[in-house]
């Protein structure tokens, strides 16, 4: 029984709670849903109608030319041209039509429209039309404008395009190359440090812990300028490129290190003293204790931190831009997406598909390992709670 459960006895009407949570969930979900749906639509449909109409079909404005005057046949006093506006094109359902480009929905489908000059035009929903005049037709075939409802259609073409020709595939590999080592290396280093800070006695321990806690909040911006200079100097000195994967792994490892040590120390120092001391009595060295006892027992904490670190390195833009460069084959996914926003602004079929590719990996990680993520957050924030 929790405090909240007892509040329930006093509480507000249940229904209001259900409805308001539902509304909040919908508000929170709609933005992501928007780009997911849009990424599967054709470019033409995306600009023709909002994504929320994707399932009901879109209304597109198109133009068609009626038959040439030579195809007219005489019916009594009138001359009539008939046929289909969809000849040679794709099908659909005509909702409305018009004869001026400014008013493509002037008349509804099936209506016999008097378009002046003694002419009458009827365009039916299936695209067949009857165009009649009380005198012979002259000039070229008449141009009409149509509002055509196309059935909802979805495509994976956008994904194929961005993965192959927009460099997103390459960036995906780059992101993995950055994120995986930048997750594993700091965990190992931080775990050893956390063990030393929890279970070993040495002078200066309290000072180092205070340093680690202080460094957690130091903004990344403080490190960028000196590190950029340092990387360039090292690059010049050894004649190697100053921007490399090794450089960014170390940078990510170091920037994640304070939080890693802090979280792992909180956990490792809470392990039962008896286990560690009895192992010591049995003659195990600290190295053995760490590998055989601490590491397996700390699995939940290690998992929590690795999720944080993976999400942070995968989603990072700033560190990658500074330490990996902005060349086309060096871009990680976030950088590639940022570049596309500049060069493809308004091309939503490209942007939405790219965005979805960049967010799909962290979302899978999130839903698969949410339990550990929450546990890590709580360990870092509500200590003793």
């Amino acid at each position, binding site marked *: 029984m929790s405090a909240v459960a007892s509040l329930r006895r006093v509480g507000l009407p249940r229904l209001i709670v259900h409805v308001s949570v539902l509304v909040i969930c919908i508000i929170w979900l709609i*933005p992501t849903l928007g780009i997911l749906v849009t990424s599967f639509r054709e470019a033409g449909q995306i600009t023709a109608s909002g994504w929320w109409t994707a399932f009901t079909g879109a209304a597109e404005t198109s133009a068609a030319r009626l038959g040439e005057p030579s195809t007219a046949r005489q019916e009594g006093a009138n001359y009539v041209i008939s046929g289909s506006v969809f000849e040679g094109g794709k099908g659909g359902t005509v909702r409305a039509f018009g004869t001026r480009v400014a008013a493509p929905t002037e008349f509804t489908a099936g209506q016999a429209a008097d378009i002046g000059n003694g002419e009458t035009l009827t365009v039916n929903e299936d695209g067949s039309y009857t165009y009649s005049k009380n005198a012979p037709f002259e000039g070229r075939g008449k141009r009409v404008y149509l509002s055509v409802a196309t059935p909802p259609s979805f495509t994976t073409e956008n994904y194929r395009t961005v993965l192959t020709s927009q460099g997103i595939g390459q960036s995906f590999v780059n992101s993995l190359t950055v994120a995986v080592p930048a997750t594993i290396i700091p965990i190992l280093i931080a775990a050893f440090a956390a063990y030393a800070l929890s279970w*070993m006695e040495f002078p200066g321990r309290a000072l180092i812990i205070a340093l680690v806690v202080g460094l957690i909040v130091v903004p990344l*911006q403080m490190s960028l300028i000196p590190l950029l200079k340092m990387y360039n100097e090292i690059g010049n000195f050894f004649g190697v490129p100053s921007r490399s994967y090794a450089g960014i792994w170390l940078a990510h490892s170091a920037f994640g290190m304070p939080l890693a040590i802090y979280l792992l120390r909180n956990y490792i120092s809470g392990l039962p003293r008896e286990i560690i001391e009895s192992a010591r009595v049995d003659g195990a060295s600290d190295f053995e204790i760490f590998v055989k006892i601490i590491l397996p027992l700390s699995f939940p904490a290690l998992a929590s931190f690795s999720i944080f670190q993976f999400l942070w390195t995968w989603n990072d833009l700033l560190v990658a831009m500074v330490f990996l460069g902005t060349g086309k084959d060096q871009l990680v996914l976030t950088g590639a997406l940022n570049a596309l926003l500049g060069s493809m602004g308004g091309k939503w079929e490209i942007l939405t598909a790219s965005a979805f590719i960049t967010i799909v990996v962290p979302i899978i990680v999130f839903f698969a390992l949410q339990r550990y993520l929450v546990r890590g957050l709580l360990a870092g924030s509500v200590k003793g709670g």
Partner: protein
Amino acid sequence: MISQIVSAVGVVIAGVFVCALYYWLSDKILQIIFPVPVENVRAASVNLNRRAMVRPWLFLGPALILLVVYLVYPVVATFILSFYDRSGGNFVGLANYRWAIQDAQFRQSIFNNILWLAVVPAACTFFGLVIAVLTDRIWWGNLAKSLIFMPMAISFVGASVIWKFIYEYRGGSETQIGLLNAIVQAIGGSPQVWISLPFWNNFFLMAILIWIQTGFAMVILSAALRGIPEETIEAAVIDGANGWQIFWKIMVPQIWGTIAVVWTTITILVLKVFDIVLTMTNGQWNTMVLANLMFDWMFRGGGDSGRSAVIALVIMAAVTPIMIWNIRQANKEMGGH
């Protein structure tokens, strides 16, 4: 691309192997340098003590090196660079600070940062608390929490694309495909170019961060709410308090500490906000914030390390009180151990 994957996998394995090898090898070397002879008890105990003195530093070594090279040294270096000119070669005294005070864009950034600080932590904490209370009362609350928490996994750049699509504006008689403009049109308003609307565009950018961070506040506050001892609530119920009073007068005061933690965590995040502004407006239309201005000056016209160092120091100064508070808290806990 295949070769890159293979080499990446190889490097991961090699990197982990080298790390593990360092710890294993350094421990072995330590045992060889300070042997523990069975026959000589005195020498054995001396060497055991020596091992115990050295070993912590072997374990801490790599972590300390990374911390010092990537965080401690740069903080000092940035401070020193702020007194030098654009190339870092010539001492210019307080010229960079004087420039900052008079620069219109710098003032704009400070103003915007204060605006962000006033709105985002408060909004996240408020929504987080409300949602935590509501979702704890229904059977599908955990599912709802998952959905609201989900944006935390999305990168700021990804979130920016998502929201840019919502704010999308199309001119003339074209159909509005941005959700916000479509709604505005449906209720009879006229569509706007939201992200270039002076002053208010800041709030449209903040909405993105609130959308991402509310889940974080909700998760932590929800755990704190569950930790409230039930007797306090029962006593209030017996005294005839209603739900509203119980929430504000019994529950909120008891989780005050957690609210402070959530607030400060988001405050630090807001001070460093960079990606959202870069991708949405790149600082145009009066949306510049300090982190972006700093990045801008790092590369503008070949880079000006003095000016960008000053801007970085302003961000650092803003987080310093939180840093001191955190260290005090940690020391207090250590004392209690």
